[in-house]
């Protein structure tokens, strides 16, 4: 292979003209389409199956369903309390995101632009938090929350979710602020701005693009979190989508069409969101994980 690379006779123009590219082109697209099917077909299969009857699911797993039974979806939505779960997920996720972004931007500003005793130690604490897995604290956390009656409340989820999200958010926002030149702030300071005005008028607007990245990453993590939600929430009225789905599936273990419908109802909005905002979502997720 390596020697072929240096073969002068194989100029690119020659390759195009000889038409030898066509087989390789076809091969490429065949391979890519097979791969796409592997990644995409399970989801299509899920949605198609949700329109079948339980009997059809067993007899004809492939192909299009005989009728598009929207009724299945309506049933799943109604019997499954899906609107309640969705509402809870929206409440928990939005408050968590506001909390993370507000607290993290305040802290990132102090860590990056202000001098105070203990700033190194406190920052180190958050860096340490970047690497701590959930397992190292959830046992005692569960005990504390039990004692403080925080279980079975929105706060019981929002507080730990903010705590988990803060280290990465502070880290990313501080890294961004470190790259902002000092002169920008010195001018404002000469005008007599206090730190709070400085933060509200200059720093916060500057941080908005980075906050979008952090926000998308944290929002998806919060939206999908299962373990703590499962341990802390027993009340069906307060369950988020992941735990709600768990309860739903244990109640209707064999009613496959309902389960397929419930899963489709949850999946489709996320895919639609993704198709419209994929550029931001992809950037948010990969940047969030890489740093």
């Amino acid at each position, binding site marked *: 292979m390596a020697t072929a690379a240096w073969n002068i006779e194989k100029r690119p123009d020659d390759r195009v003209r000889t038409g030898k590219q066509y087989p390789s082109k076809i091969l490429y697209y065949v391979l890519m389409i097979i791969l796409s099917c592997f*990644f995409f077909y399970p989801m299509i299969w899920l949605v198609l199956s949700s329109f079948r009857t339980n009997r059809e699911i067993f007899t004809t797993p492939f192909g299009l369903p005989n009728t598009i039974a929207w009724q299945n979806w309506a049933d799943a939505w109604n019997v499954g309390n899906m609107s309640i779960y969705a509402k809870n997920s929206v409440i928990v996720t939005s408050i968590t995101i506001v909390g993370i972004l507000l607290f993290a931007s305040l802290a990132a500003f*102090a860590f990056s632009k*202000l001098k105070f005793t203990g700033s190194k130690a406190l920052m180190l604490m958050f860096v340490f938090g970047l690497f701590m897995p*959930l397992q190292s604290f959830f046992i005692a956390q569960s005990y504390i929350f039990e004692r403080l009656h925080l279980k079975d409340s929105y706060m019981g989820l929002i507080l730990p979710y903010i705590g988990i999200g803060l280290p990465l958010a502070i880290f990313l926002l501080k890294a961004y602020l470190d790259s902002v030149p000092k002169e920008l702030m010195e001018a404002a300071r000469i005008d007599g701005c206090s730190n709070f005005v400085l933060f509200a008028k200059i720093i916060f607007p500057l941080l908005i693009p980075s906050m979008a990245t952090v926000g998308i990453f944290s929002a998806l993590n919060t939206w999908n979190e299962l373990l703590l939600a499962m341990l802390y929430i027993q009340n069906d009225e307060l369950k988020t989508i992941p735990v709600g789905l768990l309860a739903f599936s244990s109640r209707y273990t064999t009613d496959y069409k309902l389960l397929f419908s419930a899963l489709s109802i949850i999946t489709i909005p996320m895919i639609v969101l993704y198709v419209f905002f994929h550029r931001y979502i992809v950037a948010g997720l990969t940047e969030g994980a890489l740093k």
Partner: protein
Amino acid sequence: MSPKSRSAYLFVAPAVLLFAFTILVPIVMTFAFSFYDWNGFGAMNFVGLDNYARAFQDRIYWSSYSHILIYIIATVFLEVLVGLCLAGLITMGRKGSSLFRIAFFTPVMLPMIVVSYIWRFVYNSDFGLLNSILTAVGLESWTNVWLGNPNTALLAICLVSGWVYAGFYMTIFYSGIQRIPKDVYESAYLDGATEWTIFTKIKMPMIRGLVDTGVMLCVLTGFQAFDLFYVMTNGGPYNSTEIVTTYLVKVVFNNMSIGYGSALAVIMTVVIAVIGLLAGKLQRKDNSLEY
């Protein structure tokens, strides 16, 4: 030099207090709990290192480490390596590659719990997609109770993890490859290099740092896997897919052995911390050699 600022403490206070309350204090308490025999509400009996001694003799606990190890090794191949190959394929400059990129990334968007249910159906022995396909192409003898067979269950779960995250790592590597200057390729094409040589000789070496980061991310997040295992098999059949997280939840919340569970959690934290430190050291060395 700006003077030390006292208002800085007001800026960091919300983040620090919340982080201390939800993460830091529970970590310290978990460590303390690990020296007691305790069911969470009765008397706490100090037992010294007994819990640790018991952990070292706990067969299921140790086998859960070997399962997570297999899972991590498998996912490094199925996620990072496959992701790298996909990134190579979509950067070959053919038409439509951005569409394939979006398709491959879609599973990342789904909540892990939805993924788990979809694949439980794919692997279902009665009407599952996989057995249906095998039957349709005449390989009926290959059909299997994929998640009910101790020999296949763990690998079946690894494959699902690959299905989700291959697209994620692809995106990371894709953005790295995009940053390689165009003239590097041009001269290679002029020399008649094949796509394969360009992939192995240019694209891969140029994003070496990203690949290392990807492997580290895959290893460290692998330890935190929970949702997929919990929903698909919850450790079964015959503990063949028991991992540390699922076992911890059983010990603490089903058997109510808080002290023992805490000891298991502390060991786990130490293992992850050591691996994280080692990985960090190795990476720093690599980076200094790179250019």
